[in-house]
């Protein structure tokens, strides 16, 4: 583990914490965008270069812009609105999170990598589009087609739900 890894880990946890704790929704969205960019950088450090760029373009770009758009559109840029009906929920949520972290860490602790680090890095070939393409378009072709169909259905559903003049729309 290098100093860069340590820095990345600290920044990831910091931005993640800010994203779930900040009162202003716009600030939380920006912290989450920073978290997504950092995750993209970590992907590149882990020999997944194509995935790193996709992460930055799709997550930090498209998805976060959607979030910021909706936050601005709905004037809902506050995390605290009115009285909290369940004030005791916050420590319970923190406890659930801590238990989840411990369970995941315990589950991960049993993992043993079958290859030496150098051999695994060589097998990934840098995780470029050139290396990843044959896997995606041959082994996972049907999954890609299913996801494509799902994206189309999701787009149609989003447009239909928000169509004005029918149902609940105005």
């Amino acid at each position, binding site marked *: *583990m290098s100093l860069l*890894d340590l820095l990345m*880990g600290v920044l*990831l*946890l910091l931005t*993640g914490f800010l*994203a*779930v704790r900040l009162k202003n*929704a716009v600030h*939380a*969205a920006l912290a*989450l965008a920073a*978290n*997504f960019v950092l*995750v993209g950088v*970590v*992907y590149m450090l*882990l020999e997944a270069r*194509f*995935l790193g760029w996709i992460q930055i373009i*799709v*997550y930090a770009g498209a998805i976060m812009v*959607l979030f910021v758009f*909706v936050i601005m559109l709905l004037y*809902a840029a506050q*995390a*605290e*609105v009115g009285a909290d009906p369940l004030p005791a*929920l*916050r420590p319970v*949520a923190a406890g659930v999170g801590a238990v*989840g*972290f411990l369970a995941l*860490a315990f589950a*991960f602790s049993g993992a043993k*990598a*079958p290859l030496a680090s150098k*051999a*695994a*890095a*060589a*097998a*990934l070939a840098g*995780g470029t589009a050139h290396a*990843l393409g044959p*896997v*995606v378009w041959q*082994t*996972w072709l049907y999954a*890609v087609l299913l*996801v494509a169909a*799902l994206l189309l*259905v*999701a787009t149609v*559903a*989003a447009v239909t*739900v*928000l169509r004005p003049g029918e149902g*609940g*729309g105005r």
Partner: protein
Amino acid sequence: MNFFYLLVSAALFALGAYGVLARRSAILVLMSVELMLNAANLALVVFARAWGSLEAQAVALLLIALAAAEVAVGLALVVAIYRTRETTLVDDLSELKG
């Protein structure tokens, strides 16, 4: 085996779970869900690096596309609910409780 990033991924997942439970606005709950999805993706990429498997990276790529679909539908529902109910607070949307 990069155990450090696995721990970071577990911590990010836990932070997302906390956010889902503690946030009251539906938009911020959705953002916390994104944090959890992202943590799972990070774990996949760490395992891909340890196993030297490009298949895990392909699955991570598909997961990013799935997350985009999920956000599109989720935010459309939030906007639709806001249009009829003038609220995005999850506590105000309790008509379906048993």
